[in-house]
């Protein structure tokens, strides 16, 4: 029997079965199992011809259909002792189909609703805790305060500028300059203390350069120095020419 099933994607064997039953326009409670089984199997064959992946679920359903079909062929057992009729071999499948159909229809109804509410936008939730701390930290602020703090910042940056200015401006003193100064002093007086050299100014750089000058003079054997103990005053003495 030639059937003309358009190859469409089915969600699963139940979906396919429902489609076949609807197409055949038969009562779901009285499925012509032989006919439907044939159609089902030919659909699976078509899937194979078209190289579609036939998942195992489809094959399981095929086996189930064949089993039901063969059980339908068997003579019906006599009525049971208590008078109830023997269960229809299709019963379980029918129940499953009905259950599935119920949700398939519900999903279509949901889909309609989705169409509307998919087009609605929501704001992202605000981090409300952040909000609160932010608000407290800027409360009690007036425009005046903003102006005052801005002015303070400007003043600070100006005074900073001046500081850095004086630091950049420094005397460049060389060891040679200091040697000349010490030698000159030693001409006028025979000895003086190292610290006397820094009566007017006293910066670290100056002290270091002067100290280097003293060391240089000692090396050249131009001066003698005396120091009673560690960290005591250093006395710089003129060296006798003859020594």
């Amino acid at each position, binding site marked *: 029997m030639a059937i003309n099933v358009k190859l469409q994607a089915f*969600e*699963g*064997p*139940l*979906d396919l079965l429902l489609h076949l039953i609807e197409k055949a326009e038969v*009562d*779901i*409670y009285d499925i012509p199992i032989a006919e439907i089984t044939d159609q089902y199997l030919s659909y699976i064959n078509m899937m194979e011809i078209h190289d579609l992946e036939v*998942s195992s*679920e489809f094959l399981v*359903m095929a086996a189930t259909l064949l089993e039901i079909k063969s059980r339908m062929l068997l003579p019906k057992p006599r009525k049971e002792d208590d008078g109830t009729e023997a269960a229809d071999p299709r019963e379980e499948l029918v129940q*499953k189909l*009905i*259950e*599935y*159909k*119920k*949700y*398939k*229809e*519900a*999903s*279509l*109804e*949901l*889909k309609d*609703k*989705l169409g*509307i*509410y*998919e*087009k*609605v*936008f*929501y*704001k*992202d*939730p*605000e981090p*409300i805790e952040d*909000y609160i701390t932010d608000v407290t930290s800027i409360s009690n602020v007036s425009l005046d305060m903003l102006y005052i703090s801005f002015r303070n910042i400007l003043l600070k940056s100006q005074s900073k500028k001046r500081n850095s200015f004086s630091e950049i401006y420094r005397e460049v003193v060389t060891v040679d300059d200091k040697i000349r100064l010490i030698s000159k002093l030693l001409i006028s007086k025979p000895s003086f203390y190292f610290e006397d050299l820094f009566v007017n100014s006293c910066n670290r750089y100056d002290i270091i350069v002067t100290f280097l000058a003293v060391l240089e003079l000692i090396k050249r054997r131009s001066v003698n120095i005396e120091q009673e103990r560690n960290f005591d005053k250093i006395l710089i003495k003129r060296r006798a020419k003859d020594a």
Partner: protein
Amino acid sequence: MDIREIKSIVEGLLFVAGDAVPIKEICSIINIDETTLKRIVNQMMDTFSEENRGVQIIEVNNCYQFCTRPEHYEYIERLVKPQGRQGLSQASLETLAIIAYKQPITKSQVDYIRGVKSEGCISRLIEKGLIEETGRMDGPGRPILYGTTDNFLRLFGLKNLKELPVLKELSEEAGA
């Protein structure tokens, strides 16, 4: 406090929160009872739609939230350029429907109803924030139970799960 004041406070609260605000929380902030609040907010909802305002108030799972109007989708879309709002496949919709109606439900129970494996669909639905794990079933293997999220309710415009469309019982149809 008069009703107008309450209305504007509610509007402010919803604006700041952005997210859904539980009705109970609003009640305790304004210090009024739930019935009164619900009545007032219902009035607000009516006013908003009568005046065709750009935002509307929706109720989701006992919370109120602002959202835009679906009619304005194409304009707002130009502003926000949503990144590929992908629709749900039929398979995912089926899975979602089964979980919505039968929750809490395990994966294998979903598989049984659909007659196919639903693993992929379930993980996609979780990714989209429409379903979530709600616990584990007492039983062999303690399988994961799934249920729908508030996001699901929002996306389908439902106040709560009771608003799901009534399942059509086939037996009734057949009997008619």
